[in-house]
């Protein structure tokens, strides 16, 4: 390991002597430090872990025993011969230590005399867009590492694009391993010229280039004597002086997302949250969204006493002079400059799950402290992160990035992500697996969302139902192909008809040829198929009908979606439970045979999943019951539980 002699480093990192001399002065100074979060991005061999290891090492964040372990590990698995392998200090989990690559986001800490730093260490490995976006989401600054011997690589472009996409304003382009190109200015200048051209292309307005060597320590804590031709700051000096996002946000109008209503007794009602932007003082006029009602801030309450002012980044509890409705998910904003409220948006989505995006399926969306149901349309295009080309796409796979329109099930309070990360950044959550499947950024609301007004109709669904003297129902038959859904549904409808009930049967015959003739059998199309059928069934139920549907409807999420469209008790899920072997044996339409022969793709039960209902209202075991018997008990369920109050 080459130690460069750094005279300046004493002013960046207090020496032990100074700490020993006057600890109170040290503490006083430390108390006023600010904090910067940054992310390092580089390819596998760009020396990222070495740079971070070096930053930790120089700021004395490595202790003697850790150093001993490090030295032992370096000899055992290190890549630097007998030298210390800084990368080992940084690479955490046992599995990846063996592979020699970082596979997740890790957070590191070091401090200088001016600042505390939190470093998100993210992998440069091909398939891990997800990790980089995650690490970048909380970063004020990104360091893009370029190997001086390699120049700009595909990964460099990708990392820069992602950092830009996530809205990082401060980019450092660190040309690393300068020691291996003999600190040649021409090499450096050429790389920076290339990068400047690329940056302009993708809309990066500014960046700070620095020639460094992580291994040798050049231009890290102090200006290196090896690069006299470079007149910019050393890396750490630059990191110490960049303005952090939280401070910049103070100049914007007030927004505070309400997390929790603080109600210790009847005399106190406070609204707790972290201020996303702006400042607030007692006496300020504020508007609570979505209600739009205004009030005046009475107190800023903290355990240390009331504050005269609070600023972006602080967690506080506000009380208001006038009692107005305000709960979790609401936003308290400057009265004269409130954020918008809408329910349809254009957004960029970064897909983070193994299971692809299913357009039309409903997901949970968390944005600020708002939690809503959302559906996503097929992407307008997907971005190839290697060359920023826009490609046509029907869906998004793991690590896919695309632009799509999304619709929430109720209006939400938002701001474009560019203006406010807290009110423009969101995550999507799968309703069944609970996994965080995507991150997204809202750009703008679509004008049409403000023009849709529900017509206030006098002849409402109750009136329709009353006229037909029946409770509307959606009886949803689900099961494998050939399980007997249509047979049983037909018998049910005949009996209902005989009883004078108004019904309608939706099945493949009357839906696939018309309404859904544009849909195939991919997962995405299956979701859309069911969504449309669900909407039609809902309209028919609104009209007072008893709707019977007979579709395989293999996915739990879509059945749940339809269920959620209807009042409780109106949706009856009937699971026609026929084992695959039995259905295949029957093979009424000869479809299983074709599927087995490979002539039919995406056939449920063969090469496409069927998710068994967990909470179906009825389960019909066709191996134990005839279709007639099944129809009988289903009709009893539909008509017998008539509970419509007139």
């Amino acid at each position, binding site marked *: 390991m080459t130690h460069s002699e750094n005279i300046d480093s004493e002013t960046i990192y207090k020496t*032990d002597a100074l*700490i*020993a001399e006057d*600890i109170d002065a040290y*503490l006083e100074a*430390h*108390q*006023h*430090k600010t*904090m910067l979060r940054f992310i390092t991005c580089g390819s596998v061999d760009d020396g990222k872990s070495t740079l971070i290891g070096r930053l930790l090492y120089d700021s004395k*964040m490595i*202790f*003697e*025993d*850790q150093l001993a372990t490090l030295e032992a590990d370096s000899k055992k698995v290190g890549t630097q011969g007998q030298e210390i392998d800084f990368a080992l200090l940084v690479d*955490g*989990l*046992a*599995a990846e*230590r063996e592979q020699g690559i970082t596979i*997740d986001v*890790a*957070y590191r*800490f070091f*401090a200088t005399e001016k*600042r*505390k730093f939190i470093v998100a*260490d993210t992998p440069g490995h091909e398939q891990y867009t*997800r990790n980089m*976006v*995650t690490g970048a989401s*909380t970063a004020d600054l990104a360091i893009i590492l370029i190997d001086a011997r390699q120049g700009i690589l595909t990964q460099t472009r990708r990392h820069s694009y992602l950092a830009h996409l996530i809205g990082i304003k401060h980019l450092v382009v660190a040309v690393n391993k300068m020691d291996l190109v003999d600190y040649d200015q021409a090499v450096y200048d050429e790389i920076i010229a290339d990068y400047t051209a690329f940056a302009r292309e993708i809309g990066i307005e500014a960046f700070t280039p620095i020639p460094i060597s992580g291994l040798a320590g050049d231009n890290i804590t102090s200006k290196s004597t090896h690069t006299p031709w470079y007149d910019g700051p050393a890396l750490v000096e630059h990191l110490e002086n960049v303005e*952090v996002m939280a*401070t910049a946000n103070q100049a914007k109008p007030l927004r505070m997302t309400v*997390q929790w209503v*603080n109600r*210790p007794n009847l005399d*106190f009602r406070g609204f*707790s949250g*972290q201020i996303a932007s702006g400042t607030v003082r007692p006496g300020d006029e504020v508007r609570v969204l979505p209600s739009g009602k205004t009030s005046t801030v009475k107190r800023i*309450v*903290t*355990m*240390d006493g009331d*504050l005269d*002012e609070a*600023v972006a*980044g*602080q*967690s506080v*509890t506000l009380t208001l002079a006038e009692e107005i409705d305000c709960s*979790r998910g609401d936003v308290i904003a400057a009265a004269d400059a409130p954020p918008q409220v809408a329910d349809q948006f254009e957004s960029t989505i970064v897909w983070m799950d193994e299971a692809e995006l299913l357009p039309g399926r409903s997901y949970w969306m*968390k944005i600020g*402290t708002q939690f809503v149901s959302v559906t996503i349309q097929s992407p307008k295009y997907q971005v190839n992160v290697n060359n920023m080309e826009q490609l046509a796409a029907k869906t998004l796979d793991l690590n896919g990035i695309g632009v799509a329109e999304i619709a929430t099930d109720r209006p939400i309070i938002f701001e474009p992500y560019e203006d406010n*990360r*807290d009110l423009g950044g969101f*995550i999507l*959550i799968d309703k069944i697996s*609970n*996994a965080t499947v995507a991150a997204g950024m809202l750009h703008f609301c679509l004008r049409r969302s403000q023009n849709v007004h529900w017509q206030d109709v006098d002849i409402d669904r109750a009136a329709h139902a009353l006229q037909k003297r029946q409770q509307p129902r959606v009886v949803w038959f689900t099961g494998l192909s050939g399980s007997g859904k249509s047979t049983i549904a037909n018998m049910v409808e005949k009996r209902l008809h005989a009883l004078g009930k108004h019904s309608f049967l939706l099945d493949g015959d009357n839906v696939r040829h018309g309404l859904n003739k544009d849909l195939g059998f991919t997962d995405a199309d299956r979701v859309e198929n069911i969504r449309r059928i669900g909407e039609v069934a809902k309209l028919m139920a609104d009209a007072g009908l008893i709707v019977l549907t007979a579709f395989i409807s293999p996915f739990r999420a879509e059945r749940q979606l339809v269920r959620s469209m209807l009042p409780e008790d109106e949706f009856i899920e009937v699971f026609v439970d026929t084992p695959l072997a039995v259905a295949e044996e029957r093979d009424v339409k000869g479809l299983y045979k074709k599927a087995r022969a490979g002539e039919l793709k995406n056939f449920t039960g063969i090469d496409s999943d069927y998710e068994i209902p967990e909470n179906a209202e009825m389960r019909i075991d066709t191996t134990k019951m005839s279709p007639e018997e099944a129809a009988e008990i289903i009709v009893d369920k539909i008509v017998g539980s008539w509970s419509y109050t007139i």
Partner: protein
Amino acid sequence: MQNSATATPLTHLQRLESEAIHIMREVAAEAENPVMLYSVGKDSAVMLHLAKKAFFPSPPPFPLLHVDTTWKFQEMYKMREKAAKDAGMELLIHQNPEARERGINPFDHGAVHTDMWKTQGLKQALDHYGFDAAFGGARRDEEKSRAKERIFSFRSANHRWDPKNQRPELWKLYNTQKAKGESIRVFPLSNWTELDIWQYIHLENIDIVPLYFSASRPTVKRDGMLLMVDDERFRFEEGEEPVERSIRFRTLGCYPLTGAVESEATTLPQIIQEMLLTTTSERQGRAIDHDQAASMEKKKQEGYF
């Protein structure tokens, strides 16, 4: 600390404080039955202090849980009762009945002691009360495998942690959705370092166990570790006799497993000064981490906090 708010940049401690409060409020709003694990150490003291701030003027809307091994320092037990009372919070104490019955202790049982009393004890307590979210005071700077842990860390119904299957954590949007039986461990101090903790205790005047300050205490030197003779259960080996030394602790656990350091630091600035000048990392004082390489990662997968 928040009194100094002006339109100037927030300090790093103000931002760390604000982040921890935000995290705690998210849990209070979204979890059904949260609890705060309280180990009586300095990190727990900071976490508890932040909880009081987060919900003021209400008391924190969850109880404290101490997973007791019966082998903590006597001064820790005193502090435990006082801290809960001062915060106006319910204090739940769990001692693994099986460990108690089998007389598991740190002298005879080594690693089994930690597993039975702490790991199994914790699981029992979480299951018993049906807690779906538990705050812990762990920090990412403590140990390499912790650096990759999320702030909201998911555990299966069997309390296992799967480092390869963690949810991405973006911005400050925490996904608290989970299936029945699953739970979340929440670490509001994730981004604090040991120095931040001490600095904050100093600034906020937080009450901590006196064992962190130097005093003359009866000790025994064994295997390079300085152990304190805290009660009559201490087992002397041949030739050992308690010797009064001026010592303090950088970290607190079961007294027969916790190494002291010789020190004259009797004030917080002196402790911080010693910490900054010291060359041994914090966990060195704990016997349990040295078992094997990557031992903490293994313990975490098994459900240790």
